[in-house]
């Protein structure tokens, strides 16, 4: 075994142990340790990615001394390594962009606790990506939930605590269902390792034994993970949690935390249940319906929202709907489109949050009325917000366009789902354009235009790029990332296809 094969394990352990380390360090050092850990993990993931692309097949790393059916193992293919790298990049950019807000909004004594949470979050995300064991996945799902809850409530005000409580309730309902589903599967197959379960599930499917319990367990796992990733009717906590927590929390939560669960769900579909059984079951249809409802309802809620961060949060609900619609198509192309959208949404939503905070810093508040003309006052944030909005609406050249294109292509030729997908995509695009373009027009309106009362003059100050060099660099990186994803999607799509082929 090559030395590189140790890297996924090292990255998990590194982020896990740097968490407790951060809790005893003073705030400044905790920040440095956290940054270094994210960078190191990112570099390690890049090495792993290069290695698996070279060998062309997934490798299994044994945790402990016991071989397959007894021991615990992690399994790394191209897609896993790429996701690890991508999550690290986004997390680093989010952390860098929100450093000033964190220092202003979090109490001095609690600064280092924030980094504990971020390290644990990174650890659990990596473990969710790499693990080949269902129960390990459950444990890390819970660690993910707890650290995400910490990220929401670290900025102490009534709204965030209430949002954290609602988040915990929804998440715990989801993890209850997930745990029950895993117990059912374990009960049916007698294994916990994903590959072993798949063999047994295959036999069960061929003989037709235990068909109903099998479907029940697949349904429980899907619904549980869908609840945790805030699919439409389970999104009540989301606007407050994203809208009122500190900037890096909002960006990380929207672009990484929910994506970890979605990735796990896709992995379960491929590696545990097997794709043929999923296609044959009705579970995918349920996800499809809720995805479509979420796409439209999320956008309608976003239109009614005046406050910019809450609007972006509701837009997340719609985008999660897109992803589940793609999974619900239950075709190879649909999955590829969904995973591409996970990546594209991750890059775009964090960009939007960072840009929105930049615009708010140049204005008196965060409502659309107060943001009038802020695009002139903070030029870079204005441009970044426009780029993010165009990408979300689905303009060619940006990443959002590619994912919409792939969703549409995946739906072509599907017997029952083609028409609903097209209609939903069309409606949702129009709605997206309605609220994002409204906001873009708002931030680029002349300063005093449209204000008839006269006394309600808009206050704000000009923010220069030099004032906040770190955030500017992060914003530029986000913009570049978006354009690169939009213009250069071919290799990534090929990588996803290759990764999915290695999944099974």
């Amino acid at each position, binding site marked *: 075994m090559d030395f590189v094969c140790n890297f996924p394990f090292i990255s998990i352990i590194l982020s896990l142990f740097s968490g407790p380390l951060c809790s005893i360090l003073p705030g400044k050092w905790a920040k440095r340790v956290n940054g270094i850990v994210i960078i190191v993990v990112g570099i390690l993931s890049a090495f792993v990615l290069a290695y698996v692309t070279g060998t062309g097949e997934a490798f299994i790393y044994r945790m402990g001394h016991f071989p397959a059916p007894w021991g615990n193992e992690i399994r790394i293919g191209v897609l896993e390594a790429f996701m690890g790298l991508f999550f690290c990049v986004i997390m680093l950019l989010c952390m860098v962009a929100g450093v000033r807000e964190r220092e202003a909004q979090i109490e001095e004594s609690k600064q280092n606790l924030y980094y504990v949470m971020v390290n644990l979050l990174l650890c659990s995300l990596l473990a969710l990506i790499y693990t080949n064991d269902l129960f390990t996945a459950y444990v890390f799902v819970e660690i993910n939930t*707890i650290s995400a809850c910490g990220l929401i409530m670290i900025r102490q005000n*009534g709204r965030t605590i209430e949002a*954290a*409580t609602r988040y915990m*309730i929804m998440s*715990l309902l989801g993890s*209850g269902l997930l745990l029950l589903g895993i117990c059912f599967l374990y009960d049916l197959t007698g294994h916990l390792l994903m590959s072993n379960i798949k063999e047994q599930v295959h036999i069960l499917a061929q003989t037709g034994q235990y068909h109903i319990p099998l479907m029940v367990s697949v349904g429980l796992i899907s619904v549980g993970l869908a609840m945790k990733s805030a699919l439409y009717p389970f999104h009540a906590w989301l606007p407050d949690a994203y809208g009122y927590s500190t900037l890096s929390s909002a960006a990380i939560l929207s672009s990484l935390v929910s994506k970890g669960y979605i990735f796990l769900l896709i992995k379960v579909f491929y590696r545990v249940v097997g794709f043929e059984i999923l296609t044959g079951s009705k579970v995918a249809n349920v996800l499809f319906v809720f995805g479509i409802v979420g796409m439209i309802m999320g956008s309608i809620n976003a239109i009614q929202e005046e406050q910019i961060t809450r609007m972006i949060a509701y837009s997340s609900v719609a985008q999660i709907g897109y992803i589940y619609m793609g999974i619900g198509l239950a075709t190879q192309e649909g999955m590829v489109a969904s995973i591409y959208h996970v990546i594209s949404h991750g890059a775009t939503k964090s960009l939007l949050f960072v840009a929105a905070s930049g615009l708010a810093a140049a204005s008196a508040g965060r409502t659309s009325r107060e943001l009038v003309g802020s695009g002139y006052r903070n030029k870079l944030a204005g441009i970044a917000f426009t780029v993010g909005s165009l990408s979300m609406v689905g303009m060619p050249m940006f990443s959002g366009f590619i994912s919409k294109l792939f969703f549409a292509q995946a739906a072509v030729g599907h017997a029952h789902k083609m028409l609903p997908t097209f209609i939903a995509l069309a409606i949702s695009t129009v709605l997206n354009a309605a609220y994002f373009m409204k906001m873009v027009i708002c931030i680029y309106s002349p300063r005093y235009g449209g204000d008839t009362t006269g006394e309600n003059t808009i206050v704000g100050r000009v923010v220069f790029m030099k004032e906040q060099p770190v955030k500017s660099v992060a914003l530029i990186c986000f913009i570049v990332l978006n354009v690169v994803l939009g213009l250069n999607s071919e290799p990534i799509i090929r990588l996803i296809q290759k990764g999915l082929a290695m999944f099974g």
Partner: protein
Amino acid sequence: MSFGNLFSNYEEAVAMILFGIGFSNLLLQKNLIKKIIGLNIMDTATYLFLALKGYIEGRKAPVVVDGVQSVEAYVNPIPSGLVLTGIVVSVSVTALMLSLTIRLYRRYHTLDLDEISTQLKKEGK
């Protein structure tokens, strides 16, 4: 489908009913403490189910006391291990939920989540 199966597997049926009770409590109760109780019922029901599945009639707990006996003598130890892990998880999320509840109660002097939401709207921040 017959009810006979339901009665012969009554332990599993009880576990599922308990799970339903816990789940609906966690989802529907307004009172935060009752929600947390619901959470605990739900988790415990899952552990009951797991423990039942690992039990084999007439065998002993897999603790070797007097020399190694044959595999046939013991029940499956893995579900017990899973239950232990699950208990650790559920204890920590319960603690977290309780601490959130204390925070909310100190701020709003009520345990009713809807009431708290209305107060938040009134604050209008």
